């Protein structure tokens, strides 16, 4: 029954994807619902995670080449980087650091353990990169994956409303804040409002992924 893991993942994801295509609302996020459903199936039928991963591993292995492939959208949007280089530099540096430091100090203040601290630190970057970063710095990749997706869902659900409430008008600032905070899921939402904000958001997501993976290992050493 080796193929159980890959079959279950494809099947459950397919069902939730169909549902999401019918009703595009943030709480029907197909990845999060699939993770919850498969977890419940494993618990209910007493199937071990290792048994599930025996074939499901093939899917997560593809994250490696998928992350390398992010070079293509990054390269295609190089014109936007040139046009708004100063804002992008400020946005990525400030936003990237803020996401890490705020999470770090709040977890510390609320008495969180070290493994939680390390798992939450990369929560604002794209899931694919966050999983690898979490592994590198000694966090729990699975916890990171879920926290990253939740952060994306917040951005998708209320990010635009928050930016409106805060009276942020600049389209580049809006895109940068969204991409840096809520990666792909935030980008998917803000692109519906404004094309430039959406493009900047996607770019911010990729650049923050690089920025965070480069500085986080040193930052963690410094903070400890």
């Amino acid at each position: 029954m080796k193929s159980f893991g890959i079959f279950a993942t494809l099947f459950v994801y397919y069902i939730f994807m169909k549902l999401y295509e019918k009703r595009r609302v943030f709480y029907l996020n197909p990845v999060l619902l699939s993770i919850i459903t498969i977890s419940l199936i494993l618990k209910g039928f007493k199937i071990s995670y290792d048994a599930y991963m025996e074939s499901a591993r093939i899917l997560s292995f593809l994250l490696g080449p998928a992350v390398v492939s992010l070079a293509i959208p990054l390269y295609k949007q190089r014109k936007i980087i040139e046009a708004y280089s100063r804002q992008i530099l400020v946005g990525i540096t400030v936003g990237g650091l803020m996401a890490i430091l705020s999470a770090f100090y709040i977890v510390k203040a609320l008495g969180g353990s070290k493994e939680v601290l390390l798992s939450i630190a990369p929560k604002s970057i794209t899931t694919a990169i966050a999983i690898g970063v979490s592994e590198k710095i000694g966090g729990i990749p699975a916890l990171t994956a879920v926290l990253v997706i939740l952060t994306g869902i917040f951005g998708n659900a209320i990010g635009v409303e928050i930016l409106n409430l805060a009276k942020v008008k600049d389209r580049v600032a809006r895109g940068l804040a969204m991409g840096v905070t809520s990666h792909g899921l935030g980008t998917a939402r803000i692109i519906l409002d404004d094309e430039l904000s959406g493009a900047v958001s996607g770019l911010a997501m990729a650049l923050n992924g690089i920025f965070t993976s480069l500085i986080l290992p040193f930052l963690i050493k410094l903070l400890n």
Partner: protein
Amino acid sequence: MYKGLVIIFGFLFLGEVLVELFNLPIPGNVVGMILLTFALIFKVVRLEEVEREAELLVKNMSIMFIPPGVGIVLYWGLIKAQALPIFGALIISFFVTIILTAKLVEVLK
């Protein structure tokens, strides 16, 4: 098809080799992405050679998060025990980051 995959997996492998060789604290796939971006900029690789394969992988990335995410079943106890720091940080950090980043970029424009 194969040429594109050879390039993508080639850069992935190259990234992993460099990480191993220099003991870098960065994931090998991120190193591969950075190098491929520069290879495109300096025309070592042409966009048409990798575009189709890369976009297929990027578009279907979502399903790849599910197996690592399901690993959460192993940490149920930890999440229950640390629910306050985990969700407190997640929510507050979200608000702080999105508002301050947007405001600062707008002011410093």
